[in-house]
Structure formats: C-alpha cells, structure tokens
C-alpha cells in the first residue's frame, strides 16, 4: 500500500469516527445558524486531528504536506456531507492569498489559525454588477484618503459575506489607464463602518451569496496586498490557487447509482423504466462520461504523486459534469411523473434530484461560466485567438458604457 493510500485510509477512519456528530444525518433539520455552529465545531476538531491546512506551510499552522494529500482528504470528506460549505471560499482562496501577499506574518498566522478552526471566515469580493466574467471591468473604486484609502462601490455574488469577518477585494484606483492596469488589491474588515451586506435569495431559495456595499469605507495602506495598479496579477494568482481541488464527476449532484435505483423502481407507460432504451442510453452515456472524468482525475493524482504537473484536461471536469448533471436531474424528475413535483428547497443537492436541478445553473456560472471555460480551453490550451475586445488598451474612463 502506497503512502497516499495509507493516508487516505487513516483520513477515512477519522471521518467515519466523527460523521455521526457532523455528517449529513446529524445536519438534517438544522437551521442555517445551527448548521454554521456545527460547522465551526467540525473545523475545530478537524484542525485538532491534523486535517486542516493540509498543504499549507507549517509556520502558519498548516500540515506542510502536498497537494495530493489535500485532494485525497477532500475526496474522502466529500461523501460525508460535512458542514464545510461556509468555509470553502475562505480556506480556498482568501486565506492562502494573505499567506502569500501580506507582509505582517504574525498577524497572518493569527488569521490562518482562526480561519482553520472556523472561528473567522473570509470572503472574496471580486464580482460586480458590471463585471463578473469580465473581472477587470469592475467599478468599485478606492481613492487616497490621508495615509490610507477610501472605498466606494458595490460587489455582488459574494459567497458567505453575511458570516464573514474579513474579505479580500479588488478595486479600481486609477480610471485613467486601461482596465487591467488601474486595479489594486486590499483586504478589508467586513465589520468596518460603511460595509453593508445584503443576502441575495437564489432561484433554489437559499441565500449563500450577497450584495456587499461599500460606502466611504476607510482602509489603511497596510491593507494593500499589491502594488498600486498591480491588483489584477494578485487577483489572477487568487484564482490559480484552486487548481488542485477535489473534483466530482457527478457535477456535485447525485451519484449515477441513485439514478439507476430510481429507474429500477419507476415505470414508463406501464413498463419498467430500467428496460426503456431512452433511459438506458442516458445511464450508459452518463456513466461513460463520468468514467472518463474519473480516469482523468486518477491520472492527475498519479502525476502529482510522480512530482509532475497534471495536464490541462483536468479543467474539463466542471464544464462537462455540471451541465450533464443538469440534464440528468431533469430526466430524473420526469421519471417520477407527478410525484416529481414534490420539492424540498433545502434537500442536499447530492441526494435529491429537485434540489440538484434547481441549483445546477449556479454551478454552470459560478467559478467560471461554461463560456469562459470554453474560451480558456480554446485560447490557453489550443492557442486559438482571443475574442475581439473593443475595450482593449483604452483608458477605463473612456470605454463606451
């Protein structure tokens, strides 16, 4: 048994030991506040058990292991349905980026330890009403204010901002230069005067994303994490951190076995659905596709184990899996006939076809819309030309609105 297999086995044993208190069953029926409290408790125990900050430096409180151990743990953790979602952005991007770009290391270590134990949560303030996929088109501005800065504007789609203590933010500090060149990167105190968080209710009924308004919010220059005008590079670095993440060929929806089980029970026009060619074809094709995605992931793990950089095909998982989950969820609702109308907005998306279906569009838009992922494949992997960009090279304040 290889080292990573031993690591996985130990991790699974630990997860099984705490699952009765933190897993899916323990969470059923909790309010969001109760669930968040349970999540904080889970993170404390996870930290104590040595499964927090797995690939982060020891000097900041991490475990100093590799990407492969991190991905292995996350892959083992996912099926248990632990209450980790509130911390996924926090630990995924903002906290790693402050470790890299903040100068005051003692302060950073304090933040890291609190974040790893669920005491503090960080959010990422990037998207705006006028700039999601086009991040560099953002309009929130920071102007000099004495020795520091003053922020005004609005962010949107900010996950878990309602529970966040801190955030990292990209703002425009110079509108007279082309859009990528006038941005600067800061961290902000989410409890500071002038910060207003307003949850957005999504189509599925839940509110994990927010609008965040900045109204003369003052930050010191020691909050600045990039050179003035150098914020876009740090923003890109933030988005690159999550290259090594646990993937899910089910598109973060239900496993195909659940569809097969449904088809075993369902009938179509009085005949068993599992014998119906339309259903069989979907099962077979979805399995084939997921089987390939799993093989890509397995190969990436082997490459990491061998000290190699995994291939770019790893980027396919989200694009391919989420949109097929969306269609399969529709089909699963169809299969249930009138019974398919029953809907529980808070059902777990990995267990329930209705919840999977209503939330699937979010997965195709958040973290890189399908169209942006296709652009990235076309441009970065295949070397095809960039789109025509009329705003290229033009000072931001002269771009036609």
């Amino acid at each position, binding site marked *: 048994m290889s080292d990573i297999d031993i690591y996985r086995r130990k991790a699974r044993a630990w997860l099984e030991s705490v699952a009765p208190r933190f897993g899916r069953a323990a969470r059923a029926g909790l309010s969001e506040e109760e669930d968040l409290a349970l999540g904080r408790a889970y993170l404390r125990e996870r930290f104590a058990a040595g499964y927090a900050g797995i690939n982060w430096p020891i000097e900041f409180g991490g475990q100093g292991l590799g990407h492969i151990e991190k991905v292995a743990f996350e892959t083992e953790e996912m099926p248990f349905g632990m209450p980790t979602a509130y911390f996924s952005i926090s630990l995924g991007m903002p906290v790693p980026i402050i470790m890299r770009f903040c100068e005051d290391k003692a302060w950073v270590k304090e933040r890291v330890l609190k974040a790893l134990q669920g005491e503090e949560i960080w959010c990422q303030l990037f998207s705006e009403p006028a700039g999601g996929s086009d991040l560099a088109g953002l309009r929130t501005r920071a102007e000099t204010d004495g020795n520091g800065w003053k922020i005004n504007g609005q962010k949107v789609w900010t996950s878990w901002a309602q529970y966040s203590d801190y955030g990292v933010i990209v703002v425009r500090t110079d509108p007279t230069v082309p859009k990528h060149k006038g941005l600067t990167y800061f961290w902000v105190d989410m409890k500071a005067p002038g910060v207003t968080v307003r949850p957005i209710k999504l189509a599925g009924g839940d509110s994990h994303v927010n609008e965040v308004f900045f109204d003369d919010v003052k930050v010191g220059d020691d909050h600045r994490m990039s050179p003035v005008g150098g914020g876009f590079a740090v923003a890109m670095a933030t988005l690159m951190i999550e290259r090594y993440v646990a993937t899910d060929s089910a598109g973060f929806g239900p496993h195909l076995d659940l569809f097969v089980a449904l088809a075993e029970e369902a009938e179509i026009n009085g005949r068993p659905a599992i014998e119906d060619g339309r259903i*069989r074809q979907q099962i077979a094709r979805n399995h084939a596709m997921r089987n390939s995605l799993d*093989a*890509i992931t397995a*190969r990436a793990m082997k490459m990491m184990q061998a000290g190699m950089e995994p291939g770019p095909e790893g980027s396919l998982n989200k694009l391919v899996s989420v949109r097929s989950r969306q269609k399969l969820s529709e089909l699963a609702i169809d299969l249930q006939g009138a019974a398919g109308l029953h809907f529980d907005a808070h059902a777990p998306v990995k267990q329930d076809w209705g919840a999977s279906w209503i939330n699937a569009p979010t997965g195709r838009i958040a973290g890189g819309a399908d169209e942006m992922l296709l652009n990235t494949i076309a441009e970065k992997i295949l070397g095809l030309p960039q789109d025509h960009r009329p705003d290229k090279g033009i000072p931001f304040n002269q771009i036609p609105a």
Partner: protein
Amino acid sequence: MSILYDEGQQAIASESRRILEAHVTTEALLPLLETQDAIFEPFWSIAKEQGWTAVALPEAYGGLGLGLIELGLVALQAGRSLSGAPFLTPSFGAARAILDHGDEALKQHWLPRLATGDAICAIAFAEGQQVIGRSLAFKDGKLGGTKPAVTGGTRADVAVVTASDGKEPILAVAELAGIERQAIDSFDNSRCAADLIFADTPATVLARGPAAEEAALHILALQAVITAHEQTGGAEKLLETARDYALTRRAFGQPIGAFQSVKHRIAEIYALVELARAGAVHAASREGQDDFIAAAAAARIQATDSYDTAARDCVQVHGGIGVTWEAGLHLHMRRARSLAIEQGNLFFWEDVLVDRLREKAA
C-alpha cells in the same frame, strides 16, 4: 485507476507516429474508397516490419509480450493517420481467442503467423443487426451459412466465428482458403468488407455454450478497447486539423478561430478527445479485472461519440472546403462510422454497460 505511460510506452507512441506521418497521406488513401478490396499496402508492410502485429502476443509464439496498453498506443497513431488497412485489431482479437481457448497445436499453427502478420484473421460475429449472431450452422465439424460484411473479409486467411450447433452457441475458428467471398461496396472500402459464405467449411471449436458467449463478448471487448484508441486518434487528428484551419482561414477581417461560435466548437472537440482518451487508457489498464467489460463498454461509448462528433464538427469548421473530395475530411467521417459499427454499435454496448451497472448495484 488509470495509468501513466512509462518511457517505453512513450517511445512506442512517438515512433509509430513518426513513421505513419512520414508514409500515410490523404492522396494515397482517397483512391482506396473507389475500389473494393484496396488497402494502402505500405501501412500493412510497416505494421509487420515494426512488429505491431506482434505487440500484444506472448513471446512464446513470436510476440513481443506487451499488452492492450501498448497495442492501444499503436492503434491511436493508426487512427490519427487513418491507417489504410483494417487487420491489426481483428488479428489481435482472433489471436487472443486462439490463445485463450485453443489447444497447443492450434496455437502453434496460427499464432506465430499472426504475430508476423503473414496471416490475417477476421472476426466474424455480426449478422445484420445481431452484433453476436448465431445463425451460422455448425455440424460434424463443419460450418454452413453466411457471415455478412466481415471487416477484412476479402483478405483474411482465417476467421473466428460465432455459430450454433442447433443446441448451443459455438465459438469456432476456420481457415478460409477456398471459401466463397463476396466483396461489398461500403462507404469505407479500405476496410475490405466481404460476405463470407461457408459451405462444409472445416472448423475447430474454441468454446461451447455459455463459455462461447462469454468468450465472444470478451474478444469484442478487447477489440473495442483497441478501437477506442483508434477512434481517439482520429478525433485527436480532427481536433488539430480544425484548430489549424481556424487559425489560418480568415473571414470578416480576422481568423475564424477568433469567433466564439467557432472556437467553442473546437474547444468542445478537445473535451471529447480527452474524454475518449481517458476512457480508452483506463479500459486498457483494467484487462483481467472484474470490471473490464464495463470499462471497455464505457470506453467504446465515449470514443464512438467523440469520433463521430469530431468528424461532424471539424467538417463544419472548414465550411465549403470541408465537403470536398480532395480535402479528405470525409475519410474521417467514413472511418468514424465504420469503426462505430465494426465492434458492435452503441445500442449493443449501452445494453452491456447498463446490465453490468445493474448487477453492481444489486
């Protein structure tokens, strides 16, 4: 689990690619479409010289002692080049049938000749819409009846067939010397398809009853994995062709690859190629395991869909030039379809896969 290719395997891939790119051209392949029983002879000579016919056979019978993974790598390159002769996969499948089910005399008789490529073997299972047909009659050691549209049938020296003795299924091997063959016109004529008409043709039984059924499916699965690599290679070549064309062809003042409708179409082909590759390599690594048939079926389904779609969309990206005879993209359209049928259509494999997924769940 999947695998990483080792240095030897990478060398097989790069060497076979180098040789094929130097020798196989669109100009040489196009005339084959208009004649029955025409192959691109240099391809088959190369396959023999390079030992590709021997790759996955045991050393004891003149083989190189490698496996599905290595033969798959060669097949992927053959798929890129469109090869020019259809014998590599069925000769391997038949050799495995003889190796796994034949007696020593039969092995000594056929395997060394299959390893050198001096003998060509066909797999004659299909009968019309039956992927594994059994209407061929086996009686008193002899076969009677027709196996239609057998790939490589115009030239095969020996065939592994599915038949029935009236009571139970039979898997048998028959020498084809003197047998009546009727070449058929297909949309991919270099596949050398022919109806094989057996009449009191002596045959040796390899397996009977359920064992014969299981053996036939296993041989088909082995071939499906090789073919999935070939399909991946074809799709990969189409991806590159579409990309290169989109970079050079200009319209409305810019390369057509700058239009999202075009670049996204090509990016989708990339996704299909990588899915096909991953499925094929994974299946090759599962030989001998309980889930091999399911892995082969999954690879087959993904690769077939990927190659067909790549062919369709690569032509579309090319616009008018894509539908001309000379551009030769139709060679891939044709190959995508012939390979989609040769190892059993997707209706067959989808059922095989779903039955196995149900067994696993039960």
